C-alpha cells in the first residue's frame, strides 16, 4: 500500500530544474526543433503515436523532446494529453484496400497484382554503420522515380477469396467496443483484442509473437501481405448531414496466412491474423498479426496449449506499457509506512526465532 508523504518540495523543484538542464544537454550543441524530430526521427514519432493511441506527429515530436527520447515516457505524455481532449465522434472504418501504398510486399504470392513494392525499407541493407551520416551538412537526397501507378492496390487475399481456400472475414457493421471507455472484461471480443494490441507495447508483442514462432502455440505464419501507406479518414459531420474526409493517416497493415487443418465444421483452409498500426511500424504490425492469430484458437476450435500468446487475459492485461510502467515504477516511491510495519514484523519473527533457539539450546 502507498501512503502519502509530505515534504521535499524544494528538492523536487530543484530535481526538475536539473532535469530541464540535462534535457537541453550541452548548450554548445544546437537545440533540436520539433520539425527535426518529426522529419528525421519519424519512426520514433510513429511508435509514440501508435502506443500513445493518438495520431498527431507534432505532438508526438514534442513528447519525445520533453521525454529526452524515452519513448515510454513520451507515450505516457501523449496518453495523459489525450484524456484532456473532447471526443468529436468516430470515423468510418478506413478502407485499407484504397491505400496509397509506399510499400507493399507478400512473402507468399510472388506475382501479386500490383507488384511487390519495397518502399523505404531497412530490408536488404547490410546493417553496417554508415559513417557518412556522421559528417553533418550532407546534400539533400532525391530517390529515383519510375512511372507512378495510379490504380488502387487490392488486398492479395481478395484474389484468393473466390476459391474459399482462405478464411473470409465475416462482414459486419456492429459498433465496436472501446477499451478507453469501458473497462476490459474477459473473454474480450476480437474488436477489443485488436484495439488493445494496436496500442500495446511493441517489445512485449514482439516477444509474444516470437514465442509463437518458436513453438509456443505454433501456428506457422507467413506474411501474406504487408503494406504501408496513407488512407483517407472519413467521418459523418452532424451539422452537414454527410461525410467528409477529415484527414489522412499513415498506417501499416499486415495480414498473415496460417496453416489450418480444418475442424468439425470447417474444411481445411488458410486462416488469417491481422495487424493494423498507426505509422510506419512494420515490426509491430507483424507481431500484432501473429498474436491476433494465436488468440483466435477458441473460435477456430484449436487446442489450448497453455501458451502465453493464447492466454487472452495474460496478453491484454500486460501489453499496455503505461499501465505496466505505472505499476512497476510506483514501487520506487516512498513506501516508508508499509516498510516500517514489515520491518517490525521481521524483527518480531527474528526475536521469536532467537528466543526459540535459546530455549532449545537450554533444553
Amino acid at each position, binding site marked *: 500500500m502507498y501512503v502519502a508523504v509530505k515534504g521535499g518540495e524544494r528538492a523536487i523543484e530543484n530535481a526538475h530544474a536539473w532535469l530541464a538542464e540535462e534535457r537541453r544537454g550541452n548548450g554548445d550543441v544546437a537545440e533540436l526543433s520539433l520539425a527535426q524530430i518529426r522529419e528525421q526521427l519519424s519512426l520514433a514519432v510513429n511508435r509514440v503515436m501508435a502506443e500513445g493511441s493518438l495520431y498527431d506527429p507534432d505532438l508526438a515530436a514534442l513528447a519525445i523532446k520533453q521525454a529526452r527520447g524515452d519513448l515510454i515516457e513520451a507515450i505516457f505524455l501523449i496518453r495523459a494529453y489525450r484524456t484532456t481532449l473532447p471526443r468529436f465522434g468516430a470515423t468510418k472504418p*478506413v478502407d485499407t484496400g484504397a491505400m496509397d501504398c509506399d510499400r507493399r510486399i507478400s512473402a507468399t504470392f510472388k506475382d501479386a497484382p500490383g507488384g511487390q513494392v519495397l518502399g523505404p525499407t531497412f530490408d536488404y541493407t547490410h546493417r553496417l554503420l554508415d559513417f557518412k551520416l556522421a559528417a553533418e551538412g550532407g546534400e539533400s537526397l532525391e530517390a529515383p522515380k519510375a512511372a507512378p501507378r495510379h490504380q488502387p492496390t487490392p488486398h492479395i487475399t481478395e484474389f484468393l477469396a473466390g476459391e474459399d481456400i482462405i478464411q473470409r472475414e465475416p462482414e459486419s457493421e456492429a459498433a465496436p467496443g472501446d477499451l478507453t471507455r469501458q473497462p476490459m472484461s474477459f473473454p474480450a471480443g476480437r474488436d477489443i483484442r485488436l484495439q488493445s494490441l494496436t496500442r500495446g507495447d511493441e517489445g512485449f508483442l514482439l516477444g509474444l509473437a516470437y514465442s509463437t514462432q518458436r513453438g509456443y502455440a505454433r501456428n506457422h505464419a507467413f506474411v501474406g501481405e504487408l503494406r504501408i501507406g496513407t488512407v483517407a479518414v472519413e467521418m459523418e459531420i452532424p451539422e452537414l448531414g454527410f461525410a467528409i474526409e477529415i484527414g489522412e493517416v499513415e498506417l501499416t497493415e499486415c495480414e498473415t496466412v496460417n496453416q489450418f487443418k480444418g475442424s468439425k465444421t470447417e474444411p481445411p483452409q488458410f486462416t488469417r491474423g491481422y495487424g493494423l498500426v498507426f505509422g510506419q511500424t512494420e515490426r509491430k504490425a507483424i507481431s500484432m498479426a501473429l498474436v491476433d492469430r494465436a488468440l483466435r484458437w477458441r473460435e477456430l476450435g484449436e487446442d489450448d496449449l497453455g501458451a502465453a500468446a493464447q492466454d487472452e487475459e495474460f496478453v491484454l492485461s500486460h501489453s499496455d506499457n503505461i499501465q505496466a510502467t505505472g505499476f512497476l515504477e510506483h514501487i520506487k516511491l516512498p513506501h516508508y509506512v508499509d516498510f516500517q510495519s514489515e520491518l517490525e514484523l521481521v524483527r518480531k519473527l527474528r526475536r521469536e526465532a532467537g528466543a526459540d533457539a535459546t530455549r532449545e539450546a537450554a533444553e
Partner: protein
Amino acid sequence: MDETGINGTEARRGWMSLLARAPERRLMALWDAFSPRPEFNWLRRPETGAVMVRGRMGGTGAPFNLGEMTVTRCSLALAEGAVGHGYVQGRGAARAEAAALIDALMQTEAGGAVRAAILDPLEEAMQTARTARAAKAAATKVDFFTLVRGED
C-alpha cells in the same frame, strides 16, 4: 450554387475534404494572399478534439477502434449569411478558421475566385506530392523469381 442538390453536396464534400488534409503552410500562404477578407461572426470558435479512427478486422470484416487522431473544428457565419464549417486534421485554430471561411465563401458569388486562387493550386500541389511519392514507390517495385533446382 445549388447547395441542396447532389452536385452541390458532392462539390462541398470535395472542398471540405481537401481543406481538412491540406498542408498548413501551403493553405495559410494561399489564404493570406486572398482578398477581400469577409466579415464574419463565430457560431463556434475553434476547438481541438479527438476522433476515434476505426479499422476493419482483416481489412474487410467487422470494425474495431484503432486509435484517436486530433481534429480542430469551428463554425462561422458571413455577414451576408452563408455558414461555413471548418474541420482540419491536427491542432490548428488558424487553419480551421481559414477552412471555415473558404467553405462559406464557396457558397457565395466569390466561389469561383476562391476556387481559382486557393482550391485549385492546393489540389494541384497535393496531387503533385502524391504522384511524386507514387513514382518513388514504383521505382522500388521488384520482380522476385524463384531459381529452378538443378535436379529437375
